[in-house]
């Protein structure tokens, strides 16, 4: 949490009030254009049903509290090692808790809340899919680790040699961990450098005009994901 | 005779037995030995060089006794000669690695086949011979009688009477040979009961028993999940049923274990019924209670089944179908490997099973390089019993085909091998030379480990067709008949096409279309059960599959 406080000092020089309960962050930050909601996780949280429920309640509260007609932006802080792995969570139906969280995030979007995610720390598959990856804009901070699975585990499961995967990863962004790879594929909109004015950059993102999901097009423009956009369009327009 | 000379002793063995029992008397309370005393007890009973049967079967294992024996000091217990049908447990291998045992006569080493091959190559083990089951049981009464046997039973009473439960397997043969030749019979039991449901081994044949800390392991070896049966196996099963079962009117038979034969079992109530075969084929069986036989039983195809052992999960079903199975007064299955093998050899008209390799003489083997699997029961079932004298329609018809028309002096057992031409890429089933020959060289065996000899094989069924070897008159016809169903394997592609077409004209080779079978109808929809759950449903909930076979 200490690291996050430093982050919020930098993001919100005008002030902030974010509390942390059980790896879940909730609160507000002040920008030059007013307050925004802050919701997220910290300390590489393994997201279980309890955390997912706290996040979805935070989103619902943010929607309920907002002054009607001018919904406040929501800043998501993603720092997760992925979903919690246990028999109990599976029996309980953790995927359903994640889906509910995703529906709440969409509910906020549909009510005009602009959604921005900052990846600060780790962003790993399941835990990231449920809220961070659903934002309108996703930003990786320096040192952010974005991945589905590390290459050694992948080599073990796919039975492709680790050396071969490492070699292929040099030319293709399609499977290897890394914020750069996700940027090239359009999955991350921006990566901020340490020397930039993050408060200013954040404001630009938070108050940008809302847009449809254009990540696939972005991936094509950046050359990291050449087929996703064109193929979806081909399906849309097929006779 | 010589009335004046010093009187000769005629009871060396009995004296030796008494000495053994005296040495271990301190451990006995009545006939019971405490589990904790098992290692010192065995060290007291056994003598170096003893011939020992440590009961190991396909399914039932005297696993507690095996572990205790493996824990014995090799200083005190060494150079044992093991005479047992199956080597299944890692502890069996430990005995040889520690020097507790040195020599082995056996039948089958399924799960330890690789390990055994390694021990042989390292000269850590001497192998007397690889036997068929009946052969080994026979030698128990001739020259391989155990001096000590370690067996597994379901329950004992305080007097030492044993109840074996549904899995009898080898126990009667072992105990009979040991107990009546002054040997020591030691049993591990799962439970001590006041009254047994039935007495399978009387107390005076049993010297001592131990209540094992855990019930002995039983492997559900005969459960084949219908979900894994392929369309190709369905096609071959259709050919076997129409081309052999129907053609010969096979009423008495045995099936090997495998998906190929499970497919046949599951096609009887569907395809077999459509062909009007109910009541005409597959009525009497020498077979373990295969779960895949349930639909054929329920459909009324199967009238009677005698079993070698049992199958986990089939207990309640068997108990509820006493007209079909051999059961005791308590309702549980009474099985017996020796009797069932004998039934398979003498009282069945057909054996059908699969193999890993077959050569142009029709010799087949499941032994491949680096593995010594042994034979088990297939060679007894899969051979023509030349001592057979009673006739049946199927046996006579096969006999007529074999002798080429004249009045037969004997019939012929139908021995069918059902195989896909390729097991997987790079592994053709049909080969010019069996790995068994290389194995014989590597292992220094007296004979190549051939499971079923070509001269015993009557038919080969592959996805390409059925070859009837009974009708072949020359070695060349025989090898071309095999090439003619060997598909696109190198052996199959080396066929003489005109020769093979000629064999087809003579009915020696029959393709699916020759049998009136449309290949495209060979789908899994033809199976009477497609899942384990279907089997449960058809059994009316009586079949209770082990958890590893359930997806609900």
């Amino acid at each position: 949490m200490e690291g996050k406080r430093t982050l919020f000092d930098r993001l919100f020089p005008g002030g902030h009030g974010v509390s942390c309960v059980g790896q879940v962050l909730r609160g507000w930050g002040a920008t030059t254009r007013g307050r925004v909601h802050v919701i997220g996780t910290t300390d590489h949280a393994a997201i279980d049903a309890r955390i997912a429920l706290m996040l979805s309640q935070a989103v619902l509260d943010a929607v309920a509290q907002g002054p009607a007609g001018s919904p406040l932006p929501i800043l998501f802080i993603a720092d997760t090692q992925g979903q919690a792995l246990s028999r109990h969570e599976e029996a309980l139906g953790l995927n359903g808790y994640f889906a509910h969280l995703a529906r709440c995030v969409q509910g906020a979007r549909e009510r005009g809340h602009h959604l921005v995610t900052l990846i600060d720390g780790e962003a790993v598959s399941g835990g990231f899919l449920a809220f961070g990856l659903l934002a309108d804009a996703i930003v990786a901070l320096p040192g952010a680790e974005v991945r589905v699975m590390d290459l050694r585990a992948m080599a073990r499961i796919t039975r492709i040699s680790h050396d071969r995967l490492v070699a292929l990863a040099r030319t293709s962004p399609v499977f290897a961990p890394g914020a750069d790879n996700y940027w090239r594929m359009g999955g991350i909109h921006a990566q901020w450098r340490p020397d930039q004015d993050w408060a200013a950059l954040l404001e630009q993102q938070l108050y940008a005009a809302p847009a449809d999901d254009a990540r696939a097009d972005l991936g094509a423009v950046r050359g990291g994901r050449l087929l996703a956009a064109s193929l979806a369009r081909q399906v849309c327009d097929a006779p | 005779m010589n009335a004046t000379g010093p009187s000769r002793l005629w009871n060396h063995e009995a004296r030796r037995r008494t000495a053994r029992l005296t040495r271990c008397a301190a451990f006995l309370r009545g006939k019971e030995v405490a589990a904790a005393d098992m290692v010192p007890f065995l060290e007291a009973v056994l003598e170096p060089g003893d011939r020992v049967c440590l009961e190991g079967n396909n399914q039932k294992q005297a696993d507690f006794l095996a572990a205790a024996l493996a824990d014995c000091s090799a200083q005190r217990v060494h150079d044992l000669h093991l005479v047992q049908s199956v080597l299944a447990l890692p502890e069996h291998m430990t005995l040889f690695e520690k020097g507790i045992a040195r020599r082995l006569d056996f039948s089958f080493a399924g799960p330890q086949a690789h390990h055994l091959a390694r021990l042989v190559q390292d000269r850590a083990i001497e192998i007397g011979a690889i036997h068929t089951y009946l052969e080994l049981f026979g030698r128990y009464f001739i020259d391989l009688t155990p001096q000590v046997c370690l067996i597994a039973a379901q329950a004992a009473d305080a007097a030492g009477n044993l109840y074996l439960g549904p899995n009898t397997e080898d126990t009667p043969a072992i105990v009979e040979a040991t107990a009546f030749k002054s040997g020591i019979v030691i049993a591990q039991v799962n439970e001590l009961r006041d009254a047994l449901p039935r007495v399978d081994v009387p107390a005076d044949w049993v010297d001592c028993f131990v209540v094992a800390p855990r019930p002995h392991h039983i492997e559900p070896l005969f459960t084949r999940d219908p979900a894994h049966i392929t369309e190709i196996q369905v096609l071959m099963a259709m050919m076997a049923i129409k081309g052999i079962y129907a053609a010969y009117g096979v009423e008495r038979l045995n099936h090997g274990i495998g998906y190929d034969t499970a497919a046949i079992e599951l096609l009887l109530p569907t395809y077999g019924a459509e062909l009007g075969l109910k009541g005409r084929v597959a009525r009497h069986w020498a077979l373990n209670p295969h779960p895949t036989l349930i639909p054929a039983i329920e459909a009324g195809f199967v009238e009677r089944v005698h079993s070698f052992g049992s199958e986990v999960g089939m207990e309640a079903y068997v108990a509820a179908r006493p007209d079909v199975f051999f059961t005791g007064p308590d309702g549980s299955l009474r099985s017996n490997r020796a009797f069932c093998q004998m039934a398979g050899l003498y009282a069945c008209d057909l054996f059908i099973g699969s193999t890993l390799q077959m050569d142009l003489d029709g010799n087949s083997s499941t032994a491949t390089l680096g593995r010594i699997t042994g034979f088990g029961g297939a060679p007894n079932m899969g051979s023509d019993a030349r001592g057979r004298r009673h006739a049946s329609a199927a046996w006579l018809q096969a006999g007529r085909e074999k002798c080429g028309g004249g009045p037969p002096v004997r019939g012929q057992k139908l021995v069918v091998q059902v195989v896909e031409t390729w097991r997987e890429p790079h592994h053709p089933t049909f080969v010019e030379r069996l790995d068994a020959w290389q194995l014989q060289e590597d292992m220094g065996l007296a004979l190549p480990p051939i499971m079923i000899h070509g001269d015993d094989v009557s038919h080969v069924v592959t996805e390409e067709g059925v070859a009837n070897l009974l009708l072949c008159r020359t070695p060349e016809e025989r090898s071309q008949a095999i090439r003619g169903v060997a598909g696109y394997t190198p052996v199959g592609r080396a066929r003489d096409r005109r020769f093979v077409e000629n064999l087809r004209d003579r009915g020696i080779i029959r393709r699916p279309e020759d049998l009136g079978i449309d290949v495209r109808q060979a789908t899994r929809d033809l199976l009477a059960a497609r899942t384990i759950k279907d089997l449960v449903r058809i059994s009316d909930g009586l079949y209770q599959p082990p958890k590893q076979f359930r997806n609900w």
Partner: protein
Amino acid sequence: MESFQYDLPARPCVALPVRAELWGVVSSGNLEVLVETGPPPDQCRFQVETSAHGFSEVWQAVLEDFVTRHAVGGLSFSIHDAGATPAVVSLRLEQAMQSLKAP
């Protein structure tokens, strides 16, 4: 992966042109075959991509037998194979033939 193409003389298919149809799936020991209208009516084309190396002669033998059995001139068969045995290859081709339909 290994790939090869065979163009074999064949008797013309009576159902030409046919609707493109996919049979089977690419999974271990299985394959998919896509049947389309393609070459001239007296030719049949096979394009094979397979994960099992060193079997081109076996493929050729299987496909030649298939062309002998069926009138498949004017058709193209594109195959993705994941180690199917020749028995499975033949079965899939038979199933595909059974389903040929006009577009």
